[in-house]
């Protein structure tokens, strides 16, 4: 039996990419700028979103992605902001079809920003385009200064990097130059903003970055 070769050169994520393209088209038509926020569990994604929401003068919608629970959505709503929850069941990342489905329920298109908080994970969300305009990666001081070396892919796709919990920085335990060098080895263009939800440091700078990138 002679094998017959079929050349495909097909992206394994092509189905997801098509859904992402559709999401991007909806959002562009509604003039909403979307930010995909990725970090490990406990880096401070929800706290940073809340910190920004209190400073942003526009209407914002938040989509919370978690394996289980609606704790984060409740937190956002309790503070008077709009939020929707996606529970992935067991899946370790959001996909574009999840975003497409939940956006079909949104009837109010007056939002100017959309924050998508991805499932806490520094690996799996990286290759999935959700139809966002920008990718935000958060690293936090207690995670250590070596994260860009251990998880280079996620830092390589970032449009901006927030180094959170900066109030906990101790030069004996955390070498900022080493962290920055690790980022610059895989990503030369993303600005690094140091933030703290405790002291409020860097929050306005992050919001300025968001404003600067609105459609």
């Amino acid at each position, binding site marked *: 039996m002679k094998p017959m070769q079929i050349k*495909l050169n097909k992206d394994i994520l092509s189905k997801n990419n098509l859904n992402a393209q559709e999401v991007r088209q909806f959002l562009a038509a509604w003039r909403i700028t979307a930010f995909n926020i990725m970090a490990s569990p406990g880096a401070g994604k929800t706290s940073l979103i809340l910190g920004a929401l209190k400073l942003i003068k526009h209407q914002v919608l938040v989509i919370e992605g978690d394996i289980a629970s609606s704790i984060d959505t409740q937190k956002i709503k309790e503070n008077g902001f709009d939020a929707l929850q996606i529970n992935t069941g067991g899946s370790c990342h959001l996909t574009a079809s999840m975003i497409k489905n939940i956006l079909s329920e949104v009837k109010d298109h007056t939002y100017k920003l959309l924050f998508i908080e991805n499932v806490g994970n520094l690996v*799996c969300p990286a290759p999935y385009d959700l139809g966002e305009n920008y990718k935000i990666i958060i690293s936090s001081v207690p995670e250590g200064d070596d994260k860009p070396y251990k998880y280079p892919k996620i830092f390589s796709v970032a449009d901006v990097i927030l180094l959170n919990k900066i109030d906990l920085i101790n030069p004996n335990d955390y070498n900022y130059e080493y962290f920055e060098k690790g980022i610059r080895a895989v990503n*030369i263009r993303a600005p690094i903003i140091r933030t703290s939800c405790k002291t409020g440091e860097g929050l306005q700078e992050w919001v300025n970055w968001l404003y600067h990138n609105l459609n």
Partner: protein
Amino acid sequence: MHELSLAREIIEICHRESTGKKIKQLNLRIGEFSSVSPESLLFYLDNISQNSSLEGAKIHYEIIEASLLCDKCGVYFKTDDWICPFCGKTITEYGAGRELEIESIELIDETDAN
């Protein structure tokens, strides 16, 4: 763990493209920066491909090194300083290394079976 959903996508694409015919070999291209563990992907493919055209297929993968592409010179290169060694331009995006592709499939040609 996202390799499980990637394995499902691969099986679906292979089944469609081979029109259900038995696949002898699957050739993948996996970028160094694709966030995919080939071992994990192979494990899932082996475990969930029963009753699909991929069942029993040999799986070959090529790792694509991350490199920068100068849009001015059209050359791929590796460097630590993000500067094109040919024209000195600063490059900000990778040109290769994020691939996650099915390069080709090899079918058993049934018409030639005898």
